[in-house]
Each structure stands twice: as structure tokens, then as C-alpha cells.
């Protein structure tokens, strides 16, 4: 399908909003818009295909399940994978699993923008130091928002808009050539990639026992066929019992509550 200039620019803007810790409800807002689940859907909306965007975004999101940014590190840029990836996938009519295989590597590219941003911003801090010497609060406030955000804005909107506008056709062409076996291989990759997100999450949880609970969840789901929400209701039950028994000898605010009601 064809993508027009305005759509391309809007998609670039979605990417801008999804960059790690961007303003407009900083870490909170961006924990939402950064996720391909969300920005993929928005991109789909812009292109008039929200459901496709949702399906593809969800697929791209899985390998980023446990994406953690701590201390300013950004392991991969899922916002780029989500926005650009979804846009190109919709434009060339790829299935979600293959789309994920194609989009995830884009996440590696995006970190360049983040590093540049965090480097350039240093100069504004030094200006702020001077403003502080003069007690110029207004200037500090201005420096915190306008110059750095303008730069990120340009650095994010322009390249993404260009990539979407000019990239859609060639990518669709290449995809067309790949039909058949190569496309199947992409699906295989797409089917395996979610393992990364899950494994990273497991490691982030960091505790031997968690592997046991993880395998339990896996087997319960595989053999019962229950939906995830129901599995998680049972998990909550188990978690509650485990937690209660584990901490039973340590009085908490909670228990004191109990004894008085």
C-alpha cells in the first residue's frame, strides 16, 4: 500500500513520543508509547489499518518483554522497531511473525539516536550551570525543555519519516521476492524471538526458584489449554499462599490490620 507524506511524518512523531523517557508524562507515558504493542497500533491507525497494526505490534513486542532501562542504558530501541517496523510490514503485507523477525534488528539501529541525544544534552547542562550562578530560574527551565527536545524531535521525526516514505516501496519489493521458502524462514525466526524477551525477563527476576514457577506456568498452560488470564488467576492464588506462608512469622502493617478488623 502507499504511504503519504503526512502519514510518514505522523509516524515519525509517534516514534519521537516513544523514545525512552521522553516528556509528556515522561517515564510513565513512554513506558506506554514506547512499547510496540502500543505504537504499532497507533501506526496502524495512522495507516487506516488499526487491527493489522495491533497484530504486528504485539508480535514485535514479545522479544522486548523484559526490556529494562536502568541508569540510562538502553539495550535496544523497541520504539523504532515498533513504529518503523510496523509501518514497513503493513506496507508490504507481511504476516506478524515474519514482521517481528524483520523489525527486531531495527531496534539495534535506534540506540544511536539515544546515545547522541544523551551526549549533545551535556552542553545544555553547562549553560544551566551559568544560569544558576545568576539565579536565572527561567533560563534553566527553558534549557531543560526547548533546546534538547527540539534536537530529539528533529533527530527522530526526520529519519523515520524519510525511511517510511521512501522505504515502503523497495521493502515491499524485496519482500515480494522473498515469498516462499525465505519467508518461511523468517517465520521460524519470528517464532523463536519471543524467547529472548522471556529469558531476559526471567533473568531480571533473578532467583533460582523463579525458573520452577516459570516451568510450572508453561506446563499448566500447555496441558490445560487455559487462557493466560485464567492461568494468572491460579498463579495469583499460588503466589498468595506462598507469600503468606513464607512471611508468616513476620508481623506486617497488613497483619496488624487484620487483627483489628
Amino acid at each position: 500500500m502507499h504511504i503519504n507524506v503526512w502519514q510518514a511524518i505522523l509516524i515519525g512523531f509517534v516514534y519521537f513520543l516513544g523514545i525512552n523517557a521522553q516528556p509528556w508524562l515522561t517515564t510513565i507515558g513512554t513506558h506506554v508509547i514506547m512499547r510496540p504493542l502500543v505504537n504499532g497500533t497507533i501506526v496502524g491507525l495512522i495507516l487506516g489499518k488499526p487491527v493489522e497494526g495491533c497484530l504486528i505490534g504485539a508480535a514485535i513486542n514479545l522479544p522486548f518483554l523484559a526490556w529494562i532501562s536502568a541508569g540510562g542504558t538502553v539495550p535496544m530501541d523497541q520504539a523504532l522497531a515498533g513504529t518503523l517496523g510496523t509501518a514497513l510490514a503493513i506496507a508490504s503485507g507481511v504476516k506478524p511473525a515474519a514482521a517481528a523477525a524483520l523489525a527486531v534488528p531495527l531496534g539495534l539501529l535506534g540506540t544511536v539516536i539515544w546515545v547522541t541525544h544523551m551526549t549533545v544534552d551535556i552542553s545544555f547542562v553547562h549553560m544551566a550551570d551559568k544560569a544558576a550562578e545568576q539565579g536565572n530560574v527561567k533560563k534553566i527551565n527553558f534549557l531543560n525543555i526547548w533546546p534538547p527536545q527540539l534536537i530529539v524531535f528533529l533527530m527522530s521525526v526526520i529519519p523515520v519519516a524519510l525511511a517510511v516514505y521512501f522505504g515502503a516501496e523497495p521493502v515491499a519489493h524485496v519482500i515480494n521476492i522473498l515469498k516462499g521458502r525465505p519467508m518461511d524462514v523468517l517465520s521460524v525466526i519470528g517464532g523463536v524471538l519471543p524467547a529472548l524477551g522471556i529469558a531476559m525477563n526471567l533473568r531480571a527476576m533473578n532467583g533460582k526458584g523463579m525458573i520452577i514457577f516459570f516451568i510450572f506456568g508453561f506446563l499448566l498452560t500447555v496441558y490445560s489449554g487455559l487462557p493466560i488470564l485464567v492461568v494468572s488467576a491460579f498463579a495469583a492464588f499460588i503466589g498468595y499462599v506462598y507469600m503468606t506462608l513464607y512471611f508468616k512469622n513476620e508481623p506486617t502493617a497488613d497483619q496488624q490490620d487484620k487483627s483489628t478488623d
Partner: protein
Amino acid sequence: MVEITRKDLNRSFWRWMFFSHSNYNYERLQSMGVTYALSPILKKLYHNKPDELKEALQRHLQFFNTEPSFGDPILSISIAMEEQKANGQPIPAEMIEGFKTGMMGPLAGVGDTLFQGIIIPILLSFTIPFATEGNIILGPFAYGVLLLGIMLPIAHWLWMKGYYTGRQGILELLHNSLLQKVMMFAQILGAVVIGALTAKFVTVSTPLAIPLGRTSLNVQKKVLDELSLGILPLAVTLATYWMLKKKLKPTTVLLILIVGAAVLGAFGIIKA
């Protein structure tokens, strides 16, 4: 005597929520976000004392970094300290600085684990299954609403709690077994849920068939499924986990997965 009102506190809170990272940088990290958030309060406190205002601004422009939602009481407690200082209490600048740098690490640790490591993955696990069926409401929309509905109230509650109960209140919270209980509960929930996610979304099986005279042995159905359904997805996930444990970088692991899947897929050893 200058007094900080609830309205002042709220204003600062939202400034912090919106612009903590707008000039995030490698030298001082969130320092400008902090100063931006606190500046209206500093202006009020040191209204007619330009020198003290300057000092305060410089004080908060120093290096600072924490998890913005869970670590925000550090800032509201700093506000309380600045208020007392402005009102003549003998609070040296070093005390405020020391407090900030002392607390930012621990709170970032707990906060990052709780939010990015547990709550967000759980919410994604709940909503992605709906999204893969094209359900936008129970998918991305529900994800966003639930996340904001959980994180914003926590952040706001901590901010207020910080100002009103001070350092002591926050330390108690950190060591209280309630927090530990919540963490343990959430971890178990999360672990089971991503196990379920693995079952639903990691897809890999083998089309191999071992020829046995006239018939042939379907490896997937007759060997692997006999041991356990979904044993390949589980194995792939655990292998990935093991690679990460061996300190391989995520990008390296990503590459290994892509190349591995491509090669095995191309040779028809595995399929989606």
C-alpha cells in the same frame, strides 16, 4: 516563615512526572529535571534571598539519577528539608546532597525491578494475547490504562508520603515486610505468567521424520510430545536464559537466535 502548600507539592510532582528526562545526559543525568521540578518551590522559599536561591539551584544541578516514579520521594523529602532550611533550621547543604545521593541508588534498584522487571511484563502478558486476536480495547488500550492506573497513583502516594513522613517513613517502607511480600507475590505471578506466555507465543517444532522401513517415525509426535508437549519452545527459552546467565550480551544472544533459527529453518530441521 514560608510554608509549602499541598498545591506547591502537586505542581512540583507533575513537573517531575512530565520533564524528568527532557534533558537527560551522560554528565549529570536527571539533574536538570530535578532543578526544573523543584524551581517553583525554591523560588518561593528563597524569595528575597538571591544568594541562597543560587546555592540551592546549584545544589540540585548536581548529578542525580533514580527511578522516576518509585524514587520520587527523595525529591519531596528534599523539599521538606529545603523548607526547614529556608525557615532557619540548621540544615547544612551537605545533608541534603548526601541524602539524595544516598537514597537514589536503592530506590532505583527496587523501582526498576518492580516496574520494568515485573509489573510491566505482567501487564503485557495479560494484554498481548488479546492483541494477537486483534482486540485493541483489551490489548494496547487496556495495557496503557492499567499501567498508568498503577504507576501514577503509586508515584503520587510516595511523593506525598515522602514529604509528610520524611526519611524515616520511606526507610520503614523499604524494610517493611509488606514491600517484600508484594515483591515476592509479583515475582511469582510474573514467573508463572511468562511461563504461560512461552507456551502461547514461542513457536517451534520439528518436521523431521525418521524412516523406519515402510513407515516413518514422526519425531515431534512420537518422541518429543511423549516427553512433554511444547518441549522445544521450553528448551529454546531455557537455552536463551542460560546464555544470558553466562553473561552473553542480549544483542549477541539475539544474533545467535536469528542465525540459529535461520539455519535450522532453512535445512528443514525446525519449523514455526
